[in-house]
């Protein structure tokens, strides 16, 4: 028996978002007293895997697997589950991991439990706490499948250094063909994505027009943050759809979410609720967002944001 963690990599390096998944896997492996195996694709450095707890590392080197392909990746992980006696598979909450988690459970005839917010409350029966109803509730869920496939909510467990043995393990794969091909990926380069960001700076209709986003981007720059927006802003074409966060947009689970000129409609809150700290800047003291916020400033964004940028710049 062993636990398998799926780790994501970019340009041959393990992505930071996977450190938390490995940390979770390490803690669960200790609790269950079994080994932790990490799988990665086309990776060249393995220190991080070891540092956060991998006992064994399976690195699949294959030119055909340069791009994430849920069909091939899930077939390979299925081979691993069967030949290494894996009882728990752990994935993160990025779009790729959620895609893979659901697909993998389908081909292994098991199930996938997503949005898990902490270590299992018990191992036998296997019960986990997961968020549901757009973070307005938690479910204590008992999982009865033989192999358990778990998706861990971002920023719910934390990154913990606890080295494992870190031995590389050879594994020959047989899954190589697919009737599904990833043709092309178009990614913005040099920009921090909403999924990877520790801080997200988001703005709404209160900004009055797309020409006023300069200060939002500048604030995001100073903070090393990603930029996001509310639904009306993306509907009106002020900002690209990929920046829309909320129930029908992207989910946000950052450490700090800064909402500027966003009133805080329920649909918006549903998508950003799992962010740890929410700071709201709005000139309307009655804006519903203040009820969901940790910190707030009632005032004019056009005065406050430039001042914030100045203070942050001078304290660097």
């Amino acid at each position: 028996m062993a636990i398998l963690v799926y780790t994501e990599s970019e340009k041959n390096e393990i992505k930071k978002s996977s450190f938390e998944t490995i940390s979770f896997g390490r803690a669960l492996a200790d609790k269950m007293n079994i080994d932790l195996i990490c799988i990665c694709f086309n990776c060249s450095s393995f220190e991080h895997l070891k540092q956060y707890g991998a006992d064994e590392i399976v690195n699949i080197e294959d030119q055909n697997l340069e791009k994430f392909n849920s069909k091939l990746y899930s077939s390979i992980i299925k081979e691993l589950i069967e030949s290494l006696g894996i009882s728990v598979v752990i994935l993160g909450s990025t779009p790729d991991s959620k895609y893979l988690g659901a697909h993998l459970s389908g081909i292994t005839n098991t199930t996938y439990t997503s949005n898990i917010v902490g270590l299992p409350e018990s191992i036998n029966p296997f019960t986990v706490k997961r968020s549901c109803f757009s973070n307005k509730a938690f479910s204590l869920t008992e999982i009865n499948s033989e192999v358990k496939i778990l998706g861990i909510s971002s920023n719910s467990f934390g990154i913990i250094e606890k080295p494992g043995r870190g031995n590389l393990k050879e594994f020959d794969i047989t899954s190589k063909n697919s009737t599904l091909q990833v043709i092309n990926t178009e990614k913005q380069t040099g920009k921090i994505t909403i999924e990877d960001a520790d801080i997200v700076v988001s703005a709404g209709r209160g900004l009055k027009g797309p020409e006023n986003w300069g200060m939002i981007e500048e604030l995001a720059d100073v903070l090393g943050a990603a930029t996001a927006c509310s639904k009306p802003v993306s509907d009106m074409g002020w900002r690209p759809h990929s920046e829309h966060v909320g129930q029908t947009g992207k989910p946000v689970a950052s450490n700090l979410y800064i909402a500027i000129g966003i009133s805080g409609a329920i649909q918006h809150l549903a998508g950003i609720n799992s962010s740890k700290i929410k700071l709201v800047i709005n000139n309307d003291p009655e804006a519903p967002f203040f009820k969901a916020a940790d910190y707030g400033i009632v005032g004019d964004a056009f005065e406050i944001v430039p001042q914030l940028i100045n203070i942050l710049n001078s304290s660097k």
Partner: protein
Amino acid sequence: MNILVCISNVPDTTSKINFTDNNTKFDKNGVQFIINPNDEFGLTKAVWMKESNNASVTVLTVGDQSSEAILRKCLAIGADKAIRIDSFPEDGFSVAKEIEDHCKTQQYDIIICGRESIDYNGGVVPGLLAGFLDYNFVTNCVGLDVESGKAKCSREISGGVEIIECELPMVIGSQKGLVEESDLIIPNMRGIMMARQKSLEVVSSKKISTKTLDKNFSKPDEKSEVKLFKPEELDKLIDHLKNEAKVL
């Protein structure tokens, strides 16, 4: 071309979330149910494909009689026929198995499910279904073109979009972007009248056992009151973010 759109009957976004029976069941009292928004984007796309691809569109839900209202709405929006599998949807696994069972009796080229439902947020049914049926699968789908048995899909990824080509049959996890919010079809009187003539078939459940059980529900702790700062206290605010919240 045959398209199946799987519909989830979910509480309206603005509903109060409460639980009954010792916090083991969702309290439906006073709650209005709607078509899961992610499913509705998929349904609209499917209705468009009636024109562009000469498609026939079936909608399906797994649920009790109370879910027929939203199936009628789907028919009014433009689906050709509806199927209700008569069962209480207890977990993603049993729901996906029920749908798989139906798909074995009826060949579909494309099966569309929302990327996740807005109630349980599991995001598991489309992937399970694709795996069970051994169909190709693309989720977070924001673009779909089908030509001579092949699909070209766009998938939203971290910081961009990915283009995927695959053979049919396939399962799609739909979301906003596949069509826009402004494209959603509001049924008109003619649509509503025509929906009454369309078939709504009730199929008995296979009573498939579940893999997960929601033992009980809880709500997050009450939020502490917001800490307000005056516009001239920005230094103090930043100090709080750094030293108290430790997020800077």
